[in-house]
């Protein structure tokens, strides 16, 4: 495992690498633009958006927020352990990170099945079109993040020489990006209308 000292203060080397941060900004801008569009559409018929918003279970949303935040905490801890050369502890916290992701996906699946059984599908109204598109797009990010975490887990487990700390940081940064996206999705979709 390469643990060469990285100068994060260098403009080209933010933690995780410049490419992942460019990706993060593109993702955040995309989700922000979609949420702003949702807010603009809501002005046409605020009462309908309020009614639709009340059909969402904000408790599920809040619990999922806690799952992702806790998962992010374990991800950060796993990276600290990795940098300290504690591979076993790092993989242990990585497993807890993945558990957070799995719990998030299970609760999301329960939420989705409830919505589908009540007929609240993508074509129900404009609010639910946004809800399905944005949350499913986020779920895809979480699934990709899970694949990256599994790959990181086996890479650290085998202590592969070609796995650099920068690669691991990039994977961790991608996982944190899922938190960031959820932190802007949750209040707008579940709470403010």
């Amino acid at each position: 495992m390469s643990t060469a000292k990285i100068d994060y203060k260098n403009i080209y080397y933010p933690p995780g690498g410049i490419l992942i941060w460019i990706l993060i900004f593109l993702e955040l801008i995309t989700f922000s633009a979609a949420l702003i569009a949702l807010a603009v559409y809501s002005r046409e018929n605020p009462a309908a958006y309020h009614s639709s918003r009340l059909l969402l279970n904000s408790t599920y949303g809040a619990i999922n927020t806690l799952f992702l935040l806790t998962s992010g905490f374990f991800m950060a801890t796993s990276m600290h352990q990795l940098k300290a050369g504690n591979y076993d502890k790092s993989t242990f916290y990585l497993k807890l990170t993945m558990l957070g992701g799995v719990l998030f996906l299970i609760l999301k699946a329960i939420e989705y099945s409830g919505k589908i059984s009540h007929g609240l599908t993508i074509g129900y109204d404009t609010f639910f079109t946004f809800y399905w598109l944005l949350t499913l797009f986020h779920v895809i990010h979480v699934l990709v993040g899970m694949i990256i975490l599994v790959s990181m887990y086996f890479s650290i487990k085998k202590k592969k020489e070609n796995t650099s700390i920068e690669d691991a940081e990039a994977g961790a940064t991608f996982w944190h990006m899922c938190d960031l996206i959820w932190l802007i999705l949750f209040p707008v979709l579940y709470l403010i209308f």
Partner: protein
Amino acid sequence: MKRKDIYTLGVLFILTILTALFSNLENIKYVAFIILALSGIKFLFVAFQFMELKKAHALWKGLIIGLIVFFIGAISLIVQ
């Protein structure tokens, strides 16, 4: 485990609970802005502490702060 990360997680939990409490107060003016602002603070805690953006060049810090401030401002202005 880093003590700062544990404190950060505690603050994030408290902010999430506060957000849930504020979302039940429908008759308060600017409730949408308060909810978004609390979420914005959580966003910055995750970015700066968990993603270690605090160690990065000022440009990256400025960009992430600018993005979240613009987002909260835009949504608040449209929804109010």
